[in-house]
């Protein structure tokens, strides 16, 4: 099938899920309810003030995480490179935790300090992982994953330390946040994430050609005229923006960045002109679906969406590792 049709189908599915998702949940909401018809304005409020922002949040976060994963996979030439496995999520979580603990409330031009701080954490983590991976010549899957685990541990222990130093309430809040969740109320979080997501994804969408060449290999990319160093810097910046934005609002939701790009590559191939938009849409669709399940599986209670993605993602990760496709594109 032509790739453009595959892309259109993914787009239609994403739109459908996006439109249906706000109607699903504990409270059954009909189409009439949402127009503030009749006396039951509570349902309309639930729809507009809780469900819609939540679905938007799920979609944006999923798209951001999937795009970040795809970018890492092209730059590291390895399908196991994701924000989660590389420790970038942990870095962002560390940044956000420090900010919360410090009690500062800084807001620059309406951009939340917590997100900025998560962004810096993410950038720090990716710099460390990349440095560690390159320090040993050979650039193998094992080195990359070990570096990711090391960086992840490093930041996680800092988070644990901060948690230990906090009082009971804060400690529980940090723990709950670390599980990853999308329970937002109102549009605040969405608006906070939006600029990070917009800038990050625009940058990634702009560098399709470079991502293609980088996924072929760094030497080839250089010999074709790609300024590898600055492209990497820019793309690490973009992914850190997206991961930082998501993690500061929803906590580290894992494995979206691994499954979505992988499934999209199976559906549409490796050409980033198609893969990037497909991954963006699919990531949004995927996390929105996971969020629906997180709301209805044990209703009226909720399962944190991060738990669901991890339950799906763990086996998926192992399958990738065992099936050997991780070695396909490693150097």
């Amino acid at each position, binding site marked *: 099938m032509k790739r453009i049709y595959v892309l259109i189908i993914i787009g239609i599915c994403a739109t459908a899920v996006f439109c249906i998702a706000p109607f699903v949940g504990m409270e059954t909401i009909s189409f009439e309810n949402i127009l503030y018809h009749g006396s039951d304005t509570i349902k309309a409020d639930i729809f507009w003030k809780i469900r819609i922002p939540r679905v938007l949040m799920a979609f944006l976060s999923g798209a951001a995480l999937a795009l970040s994963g795809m970018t890492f996979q092209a730059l590291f030439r390895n399908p196991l490179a994701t924000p989660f496995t590389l420790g970038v999520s942990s870095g962002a979580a560390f940044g956000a935790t420090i900010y919360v603990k410090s009690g500062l409330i800084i807001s620059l031009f309406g951009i939340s300090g917590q997100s900025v701080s998560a962004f810096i954490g993410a950038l720090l983590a990716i710099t460390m992982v990349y440095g560690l991976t390159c320090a040993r010549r050979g650039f193998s899957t094992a080195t990359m994953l070990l570096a990711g685990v090391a960086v992840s541990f490093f930041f996680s222990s800092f988070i644990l330390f901060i948690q230990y130093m906090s009082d009971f309430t804060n400690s529980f809040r940090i723990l709950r946040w670390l599980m990853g969740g999308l329970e937002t109320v109102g549009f605040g979080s969405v608006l906070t994430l939006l600029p990070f997501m917009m800038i990050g994804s625009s940058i990634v969408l702009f560098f399709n050609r470079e991502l293609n*060449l980088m996924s072929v290999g*760094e030497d080839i990319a*250089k*010999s*074709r*005229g*790609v300024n590898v160093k600055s492209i990497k810097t820019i793309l690490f910046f973009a992914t850190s923006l997206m991961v930082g934005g998501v993690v500061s609002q929803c906590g580290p939701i894992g494995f979206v960045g691994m499954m979505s790009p992988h499934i999209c*590559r199976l559906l549409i191939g490796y050409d980033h002109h198609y893969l990037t938009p497909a991954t963006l849409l699919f990531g949004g669709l995927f996390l929105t679906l996971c969020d629906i399940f997180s709301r209805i599986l044990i209703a009226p209670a909720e399962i944190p969406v991060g738990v669901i993605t991890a339950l799906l993602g763990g086996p998926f990760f192992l399958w990738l590792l065992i099936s050997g496709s991780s070695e*396909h594109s490693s150097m």
Partner: protein
Amino acid sequence: MVGSLSNSFLVIDNFSFALGKEKILNSVSFGVDEGEYVSLIGPNGAGKTTLLKCLIRIYTGGEGSITLVNKPLDQYTQKELARIISYVPQSNGRFLPFTVHEFVMMGRYPHLSPFTSLSKGDRQAVKDALALTGTGHLSERQLSTLSGGERQTVYIAAAIAQGARILLLDEPTTFLDPKHESDILSILKRVNRQYGITILSVTHDINNAVLHSDRIAVLKHGMLLYVGNSNKIMNNEILESAFDKRFSFIKHPVNGTLMIIPEVDTT
């Protein structure tokens, strides 16, 4: 020792390069004229690949200077450089998830601006490169499904599509069967003679290097042992000192040039 340094196309002058603490290239000097076919030979680990990688700036730094078309190499942006030099790496059988056409198309990267798509000229260049290398029939195939020889030919097609004036090749015929080997040699010869593209090729195939190239440079332990006319290296004075091995020489049955046979100790 040193070839014509007066030429201004590509001049490597007293160039040394180290990777970490290990010195790979040591005061290498030689020049390449536009339109020349130069082969670079030498034992494994002599620094041949490193020299190519320095020329296309996969490796940067080093002492001494490299000048390309009257301008120091490090003053080119990577894109400007890619419009003048293209590079065919040693094939390593890595999984590449693209079709032949997509891959050759990527060769046009240095000619594209970020905001435009491929022009008619770009598409024509890709078509020409596929035609020149005889890989047009492969164009919709996945790279991963090609044989080693086809794959190597496609790599060369991509480098030609890049439209550069110099082609750097790293062991283009190693691991290939005789048919693909001779196919690739004739493609290179044609590109060089008909289109005037300069060729600098690293090879272990000394016989073909002597047959096809204008000049040969010999590297050993990062130092330039010899550079000059191809037929003048066919003696044990040069070859034995390069490879620590004696060779026997025979005459080519058709054109009478000397060929080597390495002596094998069978006792």
